[in-house]
């Protein structure tokens, strides 16, 4: 029944997408105004119906659907039962489809307000992408296949026809243990998908503009909202993913340059480059061709990311699924690249007339440098991720490209980027004398160096940490000086208070200042990473009941082991009493969680988070004599990293909000109010 409903939803969305492409192409070619509302509504309604069918099936434990039999269990608690809808391949494509439908609706509402060829062309491109993903759901990744051969738990064989006679297993296998261990894992995929799929919007406008031969800045203006929302969610998704890895994964890190992490980071880097270079085109009309390259690359990288995550090609902690979907996604990726760049090359002569950057000492000059660094960064991540696969395909040799390679290259690139973050915002558009820039940055430079000196004298002489502090304080001082300077000039004119003046200044150019907020977030992230990477302590101890160890100022006593039964999981762990360096006490319970249907448990670390830093305790082994092997780590000021990540995303969201507010009066003008 629900399989029927879901299948009908997917089919309706697919039909809607096909109709949308056909009709929108007609409008885009200027051959009349066909109705686009119908197809768009069909896509939205279809995808919502199929997701609803999936959620109802999960709520009712309908194991006649193979996806549920293999990824859900009666005992799976809320909210993980809801999140099971996207915990495995087929479901994640279902979520992808739903988010894509949402963004298609967003593009459509813009089109409805002011119907024109560009809007229709963008909708046609959205439709093509939608055809691919809903096509996947009807073929190689069907989430509503009916189980026709049940195992004790789970499903052995399934049929794509919803009318097939179901063989219903008594219970399902339940989601992957790693995925039902923390609330972050339930929200991380939707956030990331909002980011990934959102990048379809600028791609659709870019390809649409090329297809109808009107490359100008209009497509940029239209896709701004989509780009900003996609970038903000992508940032948030990456931060939450890193946080989850830190709280749940047994390797205790937040970032491991795992191929799947890289898959989300590459589009982020390129999208970040695009946010900046789009500004250059809007302000100065430059970098037209470059913006197309960036947008196409960002979109292609999201497809590559999906390929990496979902094809199981690269064995990694995230490759929970393996299937025949790999070649299909790869084919689509090739189609996207070849199709887009061919179109781009054919229309190349239309874009060749843009002005050049006259003076490199200018805002656009710093943006150019920023784009160079960001794209080289993305390229480093790309080659480090893909090279081992390609090398193995060609020569059969396996090489490991892991953390050290990426760190070695990303650290200098990040330092250079930080330096630019401090210089760029104080450099005027159009060109300035080096003296002016020097005058604006010399004070902040001194501030940064003094902070570095203090760090070296009082905290650590670790070079990486000191350099990060110098650059971080430089950026904040430079931005802060700019803000205070502008507010001061305002005060001398209006005589208002400093706080009021600052509020006025930031509101006056909200777009710029939300960008600066993101920059401050980037500084915090850099500091957090640098502290965690260079100042953490690590020790492994074997403890018997009653044993006491002293670690990094903490006195840790092993009180007793314990066992707990929860719905859907069994935990066994140890109770540790910790006396913190300041004398306060806390009880930590690192555990192993076992889930029915999965023989291997998942270690869940216990983390004591404080402003000065985290104490991170992981239970490695616990034997029958109650002897525990425990890993102890301190990560100084981890919260800086999370706060920084959230601040970066907040800057993006604020900018999005301001963009909306800016638009509102413009609309009022247009209708003659």
């Amino acid at each position, binding site marked *: 029944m629900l399989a029927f409903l879901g299948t009908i939803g997917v089919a309706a969305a697919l039909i809607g997408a096909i109709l949308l492409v056909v009709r929108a192409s007609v409008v885009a070619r200027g051959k009349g105004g066909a109705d686009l509302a119908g197809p768009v509504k069909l896509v939205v309604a279809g995808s919502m119906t199929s997701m609803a069918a999936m959620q109802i099936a999960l709520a009712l434990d309908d194991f006649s659907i193979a996806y549920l039999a293999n990824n859900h269990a009666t005992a799976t608690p809320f909210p993980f039962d809801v999140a099971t809808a996207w915990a495995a391949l087929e479901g994640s494509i279902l979520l992808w489809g739903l988010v894509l439908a949402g963004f298609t609706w967003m593009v459509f509402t813009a089109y409805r307000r002011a119907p024109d060829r560009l809007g229709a062309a963008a909708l046609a491109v959205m439709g093509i992408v939608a055809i691919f993903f809903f096509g996947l759901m009807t073929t190689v990744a069907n989430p509503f296949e009916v189980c026709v051969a049940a195992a004790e738990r789970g499903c052995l064989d399934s049929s794509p026809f919803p009318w097939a006679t179901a063989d219903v297993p008594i219970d399902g296998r339940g989601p992957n243990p790693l995925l039902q261990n923390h609330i972050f894992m339930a929200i991380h995929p939707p956030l990331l998908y909002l980011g990934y799929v959102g990048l379809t919007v600028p791609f659709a406008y870019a390809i649409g503009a090329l297809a109808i031969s009107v490359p100008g800045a209009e497509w940029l203006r239209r896709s701004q909202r989509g780009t900003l929302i996609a970038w903000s969610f992508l940032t948030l998704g990456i931060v939450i993913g890193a946080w989850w890895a830190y709280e749940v994964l047994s*390797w*205790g890190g937040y970032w491991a340059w795992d191929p799947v992490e890289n898959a989300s980071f590459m589009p982020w880097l390129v999208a970040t480059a695009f946010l900046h270079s789009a500004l250059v085109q809007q302000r100065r009309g430059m970098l037209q061709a470059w913006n197309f390259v960036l947008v196409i690359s960002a979109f292609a990288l999201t497809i590559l990311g999906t390929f990496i995550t979902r094809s199981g*090609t690269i*064995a990694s902690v995230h490759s929970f699924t393996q299937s025949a979907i*790999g*070649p299909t996604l*790869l084919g689509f990726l*090739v189609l996207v*690249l*070849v199709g887009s*760049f*061919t179109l781009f*090359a*054919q229309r*190349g*002569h239309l874009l*060749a*007339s843009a*002005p*050049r950057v006259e003076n*490199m000492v200018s805002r656009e000059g710093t943006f150019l440098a920023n784009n*160079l660094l960001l*794209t*080289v960064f993305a*390229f*480093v991540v790309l*080659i*480090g991720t893909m*090279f081992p*696969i*390609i*090398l*193995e*395909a*060609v020569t*059969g040799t*396996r*090489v490991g*490209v*892991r*953390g*050290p*390679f990426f760190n*070695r*290259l990303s650290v200098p690139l990040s330092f250079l980027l930080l330096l630019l973050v401090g210089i760029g915002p104080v450099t005027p558009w159009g060109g300035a004398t080096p003296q002016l820039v020097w005058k604006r940055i010399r*004070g902040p*430079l*001194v501030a940064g*160096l003094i902070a*570095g*000196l203090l760090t*070296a004298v009082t905290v650590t*002489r*670790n*070079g990486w940490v000191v350099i990060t502090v*110098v650059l971080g304080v430089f950026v904040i001082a430079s931005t802060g000086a700019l803000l205070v300077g502008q507010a001061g000039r305002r005060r001398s004119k209006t005589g208002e208070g400093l706080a009021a003046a600052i509020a006025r200044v930031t509101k006056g150019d909200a777009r710029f200042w939300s960008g600066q907020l993101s920059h401050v977030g980037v500084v915090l992230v850099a500091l957090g990473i640098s502290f965690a990477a260079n100042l953490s302590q690590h020790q492994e101890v074997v403890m018997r009941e009653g044993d006491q160890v002293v670690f990094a100022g903490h006195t840790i006593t092993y009180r007793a082991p314990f066992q707990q039964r929860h719905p859907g999981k069994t935990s066994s762990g140890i109770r540790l009493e910790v006396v913190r360096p300041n004398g306060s006490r806390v009880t930590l319970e690192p555990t192993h969680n076992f889930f029915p249907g999965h*023989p*291997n448990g998942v270690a869940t670390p216990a983390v004591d988070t404080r402003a000065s830093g985290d104490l991170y305790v992981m239970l*490695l082994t616990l034997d029958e004599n109650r002897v525990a*092997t425990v890993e102890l780590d301190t990560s100084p000021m981890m919260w800086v990293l999370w706060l920084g990540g959230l601040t970066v995303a907040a800057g993006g969201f604020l900018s999005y909000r301001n963009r909306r507010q800016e638009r509102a009066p413009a609309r009022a003008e247009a209708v003659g109010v």
Partner: protein
Amino acid sequence: MSERTRNLIYGGLIVALIAVVGFLIATNPTEADRVSRLGASIMCPVCQGEAIIHSPSEMAREMMDLIEERVGQGATDQQIIDELTASYGQGILLDPPVSGPTLILWLAPAIALVAGIGAIVWWRRHPSDPGDPTAAPAGRTRTAVTALILIGSAAAVLVAVTSFLQDRDETALGVADLQVEDLDEVSNQTLEAVIAANLDHPQISGMRLALADRYREEGDYRSAFPHYFAVVESETSDAGQRVAALAGLAWITWDGNGEADTALGLLDRALEIQPGSVPVRFLEGRILHCSGQSDRSERVLSDLLQEPSLTVEWKQIVSDELAAVEAREVCA
């Protein structure tokens, strides 16, 4: 204060601060840092892609101890890395080597950066002629060529990756598809990778054993050791595998380290599992022989020769060895 004086003050201050901070960084006592830095750049051979500094395994611990010791003795990073790779192979380097095919990996980012800078410089110097209508057709030819190149390279990538995917299907990193008789055709590195990726797989012990035997035959005892050890310790190994692994361990303990007593102890453990095992008893006799305990060796071997279940081949091998012992020949 004039602008010039200010510039001088700021400039001097900045240079002085850079010098002081730079000096403090450069003179940072780095011994502990070196150990952890080296530990972070070396992969634990028996775990899945983990650096030895983060790995709880016995072997990683030993390697960390070695690094600490060598750093204490004043060895250079390169000397320590050379020593470790001599024992465990190049595969333990988390950093891909700056030679051979992985050289591309290190050069590509630099090339990209230089190309990027070059492109920006070129782009600034060559303003195109805007709105020249004759430019379009020439542009078309160029774009057609570009498109062809793009399609060609995309196709090449597709072919390469598809062939890789098929490869993977055959040798699949999953253990299930690797038949034991296929193992001869699989390289040591691939086996290591398969093992690393399937540590919990019930059939992993057979594969480890095959790999360890291969290392032993190649004389690479150090690589063989962790695998034998893991087979002995693993809950999924069957009795035969455990006995074979104990025998392998015994041999490399004797032949590699000359520890006859330890080796004989390992063989006793094997005999507890499989009393009367012919290969184990033969090995016992041989190790006794080689370690100069000829009387005991004679006893063990002649006992073994009495065994009625002995095959013709074994009878031959055992009696040859016994003859050598009786003649007090030096063991070969």
